[in-house]
């Protein structure tokens, strides 16, 4: 599964990385914890997760086929 990053995260981690997702999916919290091992910036609670381009809570379930992204606080326009 492809995970996208924007803003500061896109710069430090890269625009996207690929991870294997369990077939039954996992929560955002679980996914974040796994990714944060390699990318400490993702542990910050100002970093929010998106599923299919909408910000979601930590309890949201990530399933195969979802587009997942992590984003820093918006700068605004």
């Amino acid at each position, binding site marked *: 599964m492809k995970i*996208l990053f*924007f*803003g*500061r995260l*896109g*710069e430090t981690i890269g625009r996207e990385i690929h991870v294997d997702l369990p077939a039954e999916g996992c929560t955002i919290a679980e996914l974040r914890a796994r990714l944060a091992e390699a990318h400490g910036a993702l542990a910050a609670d100002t970093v929010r997760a*998106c599923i299919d*381009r*909408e910000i979601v809570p930590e309890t949201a379930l990530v399933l195969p086929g979802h587009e997942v*992204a992590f*984003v*820093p*606080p*918006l*700068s*605004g*326009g």
Partner: protein
Amino acid sequence: MVRLEPDELRPAEALERFIASLAGDGAVVSFVGLARATDDSGKAVTGLFLDCYPGMTEASLDAIAADAHARFQISAVAIVHRSGAVAPGAPIVFAAAAAPHRRAAFEAADYLMDRLKTDAAFWKREDKAGGAAWVEPRQSDRADRARWSD
């Protein structure tokens, strides 16, 4: 008329097109934001980079336009917003509202900008002599946004 513009933003063309799209409104208020040549501390900015999340960013602009329509007696809204690298002094955003009466057009344009400054899905990097810095909304932008809280 909501658009993300990865290339040059031409405010005059945007205004022309917006006015041409109207049917009988008397009042058009538009805002043009130009990239500042200095940051909030007065340090020279050599360039601005607006990162966006394709799909999510457009949706955030659409939502702001829809909220303005719901809130004010206006008949049309335009938002054209740059993404990518913006040179100091270059236009970043064009936002406009049209209405039969000017008060609604002024308030809606004001509202569009306050919302865009905090709620538009962009991540902004200021490139400076000392290096680059990702920025968050100013406290003053948050305060402006709070004026419209329900």
